């Protein structure tokens, strides 16, 4: 080590061997934790490692996983989105209600997308132009969205009977495991957002704005526009999450997803995102989502009493993040 470690004058390029730099990637820590949990449940329960069950874990991650992408984008800009779950539910109810009333389901989905984008634009504008704290803006928006959902649904939930609306619930079976289009769409969404974050100028600017808004402004980045775009994209993703959700649970339930905000923030933080912005990424969030889903699935398979599940989950989540921290210091 000490030969490559020697400090030489001039510009130096990294000399880490590939395996080492791979181990340094920020999402490796959470990934290791995820694998450890999987190993644990594989050895201590009978059914965990069956294709059927693994497919279930994936299916159970679809809604939260999609939603958490939008949340992560907002967190990357040092924000927090308390309206994530609310917007998703509103979009679900819009699709459910208008489809039931006979509107063309494609139109319903477009309408939901449009509403979510407008809502994202509203919070984005308030955050970027009036520079209000995202916490307050999205909390306020949550109130508005919740009321809109209730007024629209009057407490009813709408069964999804249309093929297009429920499309993402379809799929095929691959060596015993059911693969839904929703799962594929989720992976596609992650790939797309990861691409946008790491391979485009927009992603660069998102990180810069989150990491140091003052510096971003001074170097000539249009900070308000980037912020606005993030909230709009997040809104779009929430609406898409709503569509995925209808594929998984064929009913637009105005009461769904009440813990989605907390869960999605948790997934992002477990995955290594910093609530102070500019650090972390969506791949970590995907792993964080899977960690949460594996925990829930595994604990139920082990037959842990729900009274204790909260406790065990709490401890394990702390352990997961602690392990990640130790891992990072180690390398």
């Amino acid at each position, binding site marked *: 080590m000490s030969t490559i470690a020697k400090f030489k004058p001039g510009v130096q390029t990294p000399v880490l061997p590939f395996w080492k730099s791979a181990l340094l990637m920020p999402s490796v820590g959470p990934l290791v934790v995820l694998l450890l949990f999987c190993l644990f449940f594989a050895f201590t329960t009978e059914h965990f490692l069956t294709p059927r069950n693994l497919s279930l874990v994936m299916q159970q991650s679809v809604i939260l996983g999609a939603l958490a992408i939008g949340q992560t984008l907002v967190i990357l800009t040092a924000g927090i989105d308390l309206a994530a779950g609310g917007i998703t539910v509103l979009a679900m109810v819009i699709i459910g209600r208008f489809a039931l009333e006979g509107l063309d389901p494609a139109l319903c989905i477009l309408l939901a997308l449009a509403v979510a984008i407008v809502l994202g634009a509203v919070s984005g504008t308030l955050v970027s132009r009036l520079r209000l704290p995202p916490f307050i803006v999205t909390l306020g928006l949550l109130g508005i969205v919740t009321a809109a959902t209730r007024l629209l649904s009057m407490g009813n939930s709408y069964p999804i009977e249309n093929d297009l609306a429920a499309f993402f619930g379809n799929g095929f079976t691959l060596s015993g495991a059911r693969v839904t289009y929703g799962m594929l769409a989720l992976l596609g969404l992650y790939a797309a957002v990861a691409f946008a974050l790491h391979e485009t100028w927009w992603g660069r600017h998102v990180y810069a704005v989150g990491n140091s808004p003052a510096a971003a402004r001074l170097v000539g980045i249009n900070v308000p526009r980037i912020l606005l775009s993030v909230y709009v994209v997040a809104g779009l993703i929430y609406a898409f999450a709503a569509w995925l959700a209808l594929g998984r649970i064929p*009913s637009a*339930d105005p009461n769904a997803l009440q813990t989605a905000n907390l869960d999605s923030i948790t997934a992002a933080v477990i995955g290594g995102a910093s609530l102070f912005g500019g650090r972390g990424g969506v791949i970590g969030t995907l792993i964080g989502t899977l960690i949460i889903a594996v925990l829930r699935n595994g604990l*139920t*398979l082990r037959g842990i009493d729900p009274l204790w599940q909260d406790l065990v989950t709490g401890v394990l989540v702390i352990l997961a993040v602690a392990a990640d921290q130790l891992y990072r210091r180690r390398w």
Partner: protein
Amino acid sequence: APARAEEPMVVGLITKTDTIPFFVKMREAATEEAKKHGVKLVASTGKFDGDTESQVAAIENLISVGAKGILITPSNSTAILSAVKEARAKGIVVIALDTPTEPADAVDATFATDNFKAGEYQGAYAKQALGGKAPKIVMLDGTSGSSVSELRHDGYLKGMGLAKGDPAILGAQFTNGATDKAQAAMENLLAAHPDINAVYSINETAAAGAYAAIKAAGLEKDIVLTAIDGGCAGVKNVHDGKTAATVMQFPRKMAALGLAAIVEAAKGGKKPAGFVDTGAEVITDKPVEGIPSKDTKFGAEACWG
């Protein structure tokens, strides 16, 4: 892992939440009953009233585990049906507890109280207790959008003989069934309408908060406060005169009967079917005409606290 023939049979119980006594008692009873029959009970719960996602996941996980039967209090009467269908297709007996599904025959059987009816008892009692006075009521509801909350609410109004939106309804607030929220809501409603004479409350913990507010305003003699549940603390409040009446339900009975039915079916016996009403009783020490009721002595023995 090798299949072990001697594995005990697994039965699942899925409640809406595990924060309110109603469901806690339901699970206690199921656990006891399971022990009696030598079956393994795997309990799961939603994170909040309306958490269909967790319930669907729980059904899926129970199918994975190879459960023989599932007892579920559906958070949403339609949203879980596709998962239920999958379970039944695998030969699992599914029984709805407390809340029926829509359609009701989507499950094998339903063991429940009729929440609408329970609300109706409450309303009818209050109407009689007002003794001909024009009702001026406020409603302390549960969680917004929860079906139980709405059924009880609507039932109460029917019992009162009022239509939705009747001007006699002076106000309503969501309390999440919690004492603190109910108390603040009641205080504010009383500040706006000092002439309230009847209060509907979603459950007994909410009623306890409402009573504190009513007492602080010195109106405990003028207001008919009623509740639903049948927990021992709630019955005691009736006994102490804090609430005029409560409508008792029997969550323990639902769970115990349901579990026994599943065990019987699994052993090759008769499959349960249809709607089994586990009953509701008005508990009060001030009985009124036309409403059958039991006194708090009965209540103290039958309560589930």
